Every structure is written in C-alpha cells, then in structure tokens.
C-alpha cells in the first residue's frame, strides 16, 4: 500500500529519547507536534498522560515506546488502551530494569490462567 508510513513515538528519560532520536524516529517541525517527550524529574504526570493520549489520538503513530517506570505512572491510561494500533511497548530505563509482571500486554496475555481453564 503506497503512502507515507507511520511514526514511532517515544516517551522516556533523556538518554532513551536521545538514543531513539539518534536512530532516526524524531519528527519536529513548525506545523506538527513532536512525536517524543523527554520526561524529567519535574515533568508532571498530567503532562505525561496528556502526551500519551495525544499520541493515541494521532492516526500517524504506529508504535509508542515508553519507559516502564513512566508507564507505571499512567498505568490506568495504558490498561485502558485495547486497540492494536498504536502498539504500546514498555521498555526498561537506566534506573528501572524491565519487569515482565508489570507489562500490561503480558499481563493480559497471561490472563491469570486458572486451574479450571485446563480441566
């Protein structure tokens, strides 16, 4: 299918965002909002949540990468997102290693299997 591809958005700490921008995913011009957010110590949870929701609302973003410790701050918003696109990927941060038990997708996938499911 011809046409412009979609973007990858990133919400993370400075090093994470720097790395992904080095990789070439960044978009920033006068007309459009950036597809990344650098979360610092003084970044409010409201701002993070609003940015996440704005990324979800955009139809030109296919994947949202978010540090897991930031995802924990807005877990309710991430859990509420049930659509396939954009896909949300939780990634580790320097100070918080990745924990599979906290990942929204894996928790849904493992779905709290009960013993009754296998009878």
């Amino acid at each position, binding site marked *: 299918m011809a046409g412009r591809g979609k*973007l990858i958005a990133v919400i993370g700490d400075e*090093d994470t965002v720097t790395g992904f921008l*080095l990789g*070439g*995913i*960044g*978009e920033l011009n006068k007309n459009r909002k950036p597809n990344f957010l650098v979360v610092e110590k003084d970044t409010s949870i409201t701002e993070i949540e609003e940015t996440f929701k704005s990324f979800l609302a955009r139809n030109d973003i296919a994947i949202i990468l978010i540090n897991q410790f930031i995802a924990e701050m807005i877990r309710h918003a991430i859990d509420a997102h049930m659509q396939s696109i954009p896909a949300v990927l939780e990634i580790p941060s320097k100070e918080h290693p990745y924990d599979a038990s906290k990942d929204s997708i894996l928790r849904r*996938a493992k779905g709290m299997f009960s013993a009754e*499911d296998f009878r």
Partner: protein
Amino acid sequence: MGVLREEDSCLLLDEKLLYFMDQLELLEGKRKTLNSLIEQGWFSISKARYSMGNKQVSALQFANEMEPLVSVHVRTLENDEVEFCAVRSSRKCNDKFVKEPTSIEDIGPQEEGIRRRRNTKSDVAEKKTSEDISSEKAPEVNPGRKRDHNPQQDPLKWFGILVPQSLKQAQSSFKQVIELSAEIAALQIVVLNARQELKHDLRNNDGSTGLNTSARLNEKEADVLSANESL
C-alpha cells in the same frame, strides 16, 4: 461420535495452547534482545558523554526541525493480526538536498565577492539588494539551505562534525532496537489474539464437555437401573 468430537476439540485446544506458548516464548526472547540492545545503547551514550562532555550529549543538542528517517508500514491481515514493517528512508531525499546546495554555492561566492569589497554605503546597498535577491530565491534555496538545519540529516550531526565512535555505536544499537520494536509490536498482537481465541475455545469446550458428561452419566444410570431390574 460425541467422544470423537470431544477428542478433536481437545486436540485443537492443545494445538492452540502450544501455539500460544510458542509465540509467548518468542516474544520473551525478542524482548530480552531488545532490552540488552537498549542497555548497550545507553552504555555507548554514556561513553560518548564522558569523552565529549556532559552537556554535549543531551536534549540541548536536538535539532529545531527534524524529519523521521524511519517509518512504520502497518498492514492489517485477515485473522485480525497486524503486520508492522519498519522502513528506513533511502538516501534519495538526501541526494535532492545535495543537488540544491549548488545553487547556494553559486550565490555564496558572489556574495562573498561583494562582501569582500570595501564596506561603503553603496556596498551596503548592494548587499541589501543581493539579500533581497537571495530572499526572493529563498523558497527554492531553503530546502537545500537547510543543510545546516536539514531535517533529513543524520542525527549524529546534531552533536558535532567529529563524533566519537561510541556515539555511532549507540546509533547503531538504537537502529536495531527500532527494527526489533516493530517485530515485537506485531508479536504482541499475535499473542493477545491467540490468548483470546484460546479462552473462547476453552469456554465452548467446557460447555460441550459438560453436556457430554451429563449424557454419559444418564446412560450409565439407565444401564445400572436396567441391570437391577433384570436381577
């Protein structure tokens, strides 16, 4: 017949469960690779920061304008699965920018030639006219003039002309991370769909096995009763 159907449905369930487990294992394997590549990237960025200076590798260096070099092509398949394909833009766009700066180079030396003359009022007026000309030409030149602020340029150039090898290694790591992210995004959807299907089939199977067992119990009770009567 009922028993055969039950066996078939159980076999089908087993296959789906194994498929789900395989996909989950694949997903966890790719996640592990992704996490280690990200950590590698951070380490390289830290090394670059150590050699270049703390403020030289930070958000302050981000360009004012940037265009994505990677795009993700999304395709929804028939079975509700989604395919993500990360495509890095070719250098064709950069070639356009390479061609257009020749027009800048044409103008540049002329301006320099004018500017090198003695700084009189007439020269100032000439400069103004040349600036007017260049501003008129700006719409044509700007895309190329953005060589300094070229949105399509390699992001490494934001950090200087000569960057340490560690920063290039960081870029390479994160490029791999980006490609892997697309694969993981697709796998996540596969895993979730498989889980959903399995749950649905388990519920259906419970319903049908429930009916079969109760029918068998009834048959057994009837057999026992008839045996007792005959006695």
